[in-house]
């Protein structure tokens, strides 16, 4: 028995030595992790969700906005960080056969209105002026907190707009328009005042790509449901409600977002593929030239969720550049506590894989020893 213990211990050390290169790889990754932890991009998330259409037959625009609201809330952004603007009331509209509900899927499968909704700007308050004031922060002093966008230079903001639009403009409530130049200037004001760290702009209207053509401020990524000259189409009508429930692009974005949870690693490249021409009929477009990071490094939860970077460890981590000290200590860390760092999602998969590989080899060796012993 003692012999086997000694032998197994010896083989474990051998395995450990074999895995030293892996360990050093993990060590440098831990170092990167630690560095990135202190060089984090954003610390808080905001969302501004705007529906600009009035009247019952524009039910689908309200459903679009509410489905993004639902996803954003589900992934962690609280109501205090969401500015929701709905230009008309569909849920308690006298023409709604099921009051206090807004459905996104036909046969009333999913009620995106929910039981816990807080709308900040309603009805006649959704105007171009109020929208620009919310973005730029130039609001009258008597505006309550829930109606303000209190972002700072470490905020990632998601801006979603939907309604009826054309080449270079978006219609607000059938009485006024906002042009792409005004929008670009508003974003530049936000940049000058350091009101955002990174901004994701999504628009679901006809000829939506024209709205992001004129952006010139850094750190903006934009998505649109259709190119210039194309119409965005609606998805499916419901015979009980009587109108089209959602637009195609946002319907498929909603289905995509339903798969996301706060720990998921899906990145922006997957969002760009969401609605191909075969499903959407229009060609969704995107613009990333103003964005500094590579879209494949940008997680969906960077904008749609509010994921806090939390690192839980029982070991002390030295951040000196002395590689010798780091290697041996971090080898230990890899085996015992690296695998418990579940919250550091960016580099965790690589560490976990190294961990798993090491353990598997260990187990195989041990099994080999034991069978060899018989």
């Amino acid at each position, binding site marked *: 028995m003692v012999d086997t213990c000694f032998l197994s211990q010896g083989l474990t050390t051998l395995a450990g030595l074999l895995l030293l290169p892996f360990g050093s790889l993990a060590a440098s990754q831990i170092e990167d992790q630690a560095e990135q932890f202190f060089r984090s991009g954003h610390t808080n998330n905001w969302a501004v969700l705007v529906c600009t259409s*009035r*009247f019952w037959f524009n039910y689908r625009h309200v459903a679009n906005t509410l489905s993004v609201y639902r996803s954003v809330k589900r992934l962690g952004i609280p109501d205090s960080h969401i500015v929701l603007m709905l230009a008309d*009331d569909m*849920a*308690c509209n006298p023409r709604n056969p*099921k*009051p*206090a*509900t807004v459905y996104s899927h036909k046969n009333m499968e999913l*009620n995106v*209105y*929910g*039981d*816990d*909704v*807080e*709308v*900040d700007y*309603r*009805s*006649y*308050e959704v105007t171009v002026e109020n929208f620009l004031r919310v973005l730029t922060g130039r609001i009258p002093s*008597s*505006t*309550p*907190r*829930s*109606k303000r966008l209190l972002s700072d230079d470490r905020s990632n903001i998601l801006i979603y707009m939907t309604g009826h639009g054309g080449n270079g403009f978006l219609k607000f*409530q*059938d*009485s006024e328009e906002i042009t792409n130049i005004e929008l670009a200037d508003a974003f530049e004001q936000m940049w000058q005042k350091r009101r955002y760290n990174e901004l994701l702009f999504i628009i679901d209207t006809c000829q939506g790509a024209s709205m992001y053509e004129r952006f010139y401020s850094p750190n903006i990524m934009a998505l649109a449901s259709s190119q210039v000259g194309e119409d965005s189409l609606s998805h499916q009508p419901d015979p009980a409600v009587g109108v089209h429930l959602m637009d195609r692009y946002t319907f498929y974005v909603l289905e995509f977002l339903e798969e996301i949870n706060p720990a998921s690693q899906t990145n922006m490249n997957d969002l760009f593929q969401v609605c191909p021409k075969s499903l959407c009929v229009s060609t969704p477009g995107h613009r990333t030239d103003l964005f500094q990071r590579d879209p494949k490094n940008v997680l969906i939860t960077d904008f749609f969720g509010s994921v806090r970077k939390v690192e839980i460890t029982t070991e002390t981590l030295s951040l000196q550049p002395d590689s010798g000290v780091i290697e041996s200590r971090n080898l230990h860390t890899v085996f015992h506590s690296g695998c418990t760092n579940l919250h550091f999602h960016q580099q965790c998969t690589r560490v976990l894989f190294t961990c798993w590989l090491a353990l598997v080899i260990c187990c195989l060796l041990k099994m080999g020893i034991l069978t060899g012993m018989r």
Partner: protein
Amino acid sequence: MAAAVRIFLLVLLLLGPGGWGQAEPPRDSLREELVITPLPSGDVAATFQFRTRWDSELQREWVSHYRLFPKALGQLISKYSLRELHLSLTQGFWRTRYWGTPFLQAPSGAELWAWFQETVTDVDESWKELSNVLSGIFCASLNFIDSTNTVTPTASFKPLGLANGTDHSFLRYAVLPREVVCTENLTPWKKLLPCSSKAGLSVLLKADRLFHTSYHSQAVHIRPVCRNARCTSVSWELRQTLSVVFDAFVTGQGKKDWSLFRMFSRTLTEPCPLALESRVYVDITSYGQDNETLEVYPPPLTTYQDVILGTRKTYAVYDLLDAAVVSNSRSLNIQLKWKRPPENEAPPVPFLYAQRYVSGYGLQSGELSTLLYNTHPYRAFPVLLLDSVPWYLRLYVHTLTITSKGKENKPSERSPQPAPPPPLPLHVPQHLSSQGYIHYQPAQDRMQPHLLEMLIQLPANSITKVSIQFERALLKWTEYTPDPNHGFYVSPSVLSALVPSVVAAKPGDWEESPLFNSLFPVSDSSSYFVRLYTEPLLVSLPTPDFSMPYNVVCLTCTVVAVCYGSFYNLLTRTFQIEEPRKGGLAKRLANLVRRARGVPPL
């Protein structure tokens, strides 16, 4: 010895915190009630009331610890020096004629009225800020309340809580009839409750059932009340009420049976642990004690009898704090079943109800008429009518006519004499009933609305018609809403009256009794106070065609291009004769090239 030591330690412990002279935190209590009333027309009305009472003087002490009383409202009271605040959000209309007198009616849309303390210097500024803050708390567009829809009533509204004097310059009243009520207004209202929607009666508040109703009204009332019988100090009372009327024929598949589960899709499981009282009252008045017409299940352990709104009523009481009530199945689903169909008798008509409408044709002028019905067989009583009409309907006051039973009934125009301060808060100035009272404040364009308050004597068993003619104004094109063809709303009239009771109420402990008796206490028990609202009116204004500027530009440019352009061409162009070109393909190609170069052709 050990026991003595223990007793000594116990005494020390008990005296310890108090012994150091620390003030104990103000006590607060929560009482929750649900009253279910079958209405004469077959519908079922359910009224929730959550009363939070806090023994603290917010104005004088600096308060840092909030327990049951919500912090958002407590800070509002101290910051804006409020004496009273009443906010209601309503969808639908209470049909007094068919449903009876309501406990507490509210006008369609949003209604906000507040009394400020005498220490406030600029009441309008505070009012504006208050409406903005409330719009953020309740997710409603109350920020649209401004001077064009705010009035200062002089007689209809009196403080409902403690008051030293009633200087009406500290009162503001506004109604937004266009305001929509939906789940986003219910969510923050529920969050103000101590038990939120997790326990007690508030588990029944599910939005998809509450808005599938004929009438939905939620309100918040804050007022100061006496802490004890001698009224040496003041407590704050927050009352949150929610009234809904379910259309029983829709939900009950044609039968008039109802149950809690069918109405709310939930049953009651436990009382709110923070509540002092948690009760459900079911009105079983009309049907007596016999079980032949109907049956209430589970059978109530106690009944409660009182004079409510002038008539004697019997209620079956279910006390959720009583273990016997919720014991067996851990859930309480109150049901009412009809054993035999009730006789078709005419429903009892309330003594006072009103109706309002717009008449006339065209887009220039019209007439506003209010019909006041007094169905009491022999008693006449006065009613205070408050009308607030927007400035763009220009009222002609000389056309104001009041007729009862065909004869003219004009309130006397003598100005009211100042009355001695009443000992208890009164809700209709009784000293004015013998004289007439009329107060009219004309509108100023884009600044304030019309305000008309009148005291009208309603003769017994009569219909009184109050009518006034108006002319519609043309608004500036920026003042139209994005959907101007929908029309513009006129806020409902307010009727305040002391209606004679059938049965005299016995004066009791008003503060402790449930069922809204304590909201409008009256000194004279032979009548009860009621405040009714009429329907809001929808008036079309002459609306311009907003696409006309575009049409005019297109038309003008076309005309100019065609006419002027043709003349210009005729005058300035010279005409040359051109020989027909003969030649083969090569020559034509060569000419093309020459033309491209700008050289004259061959």
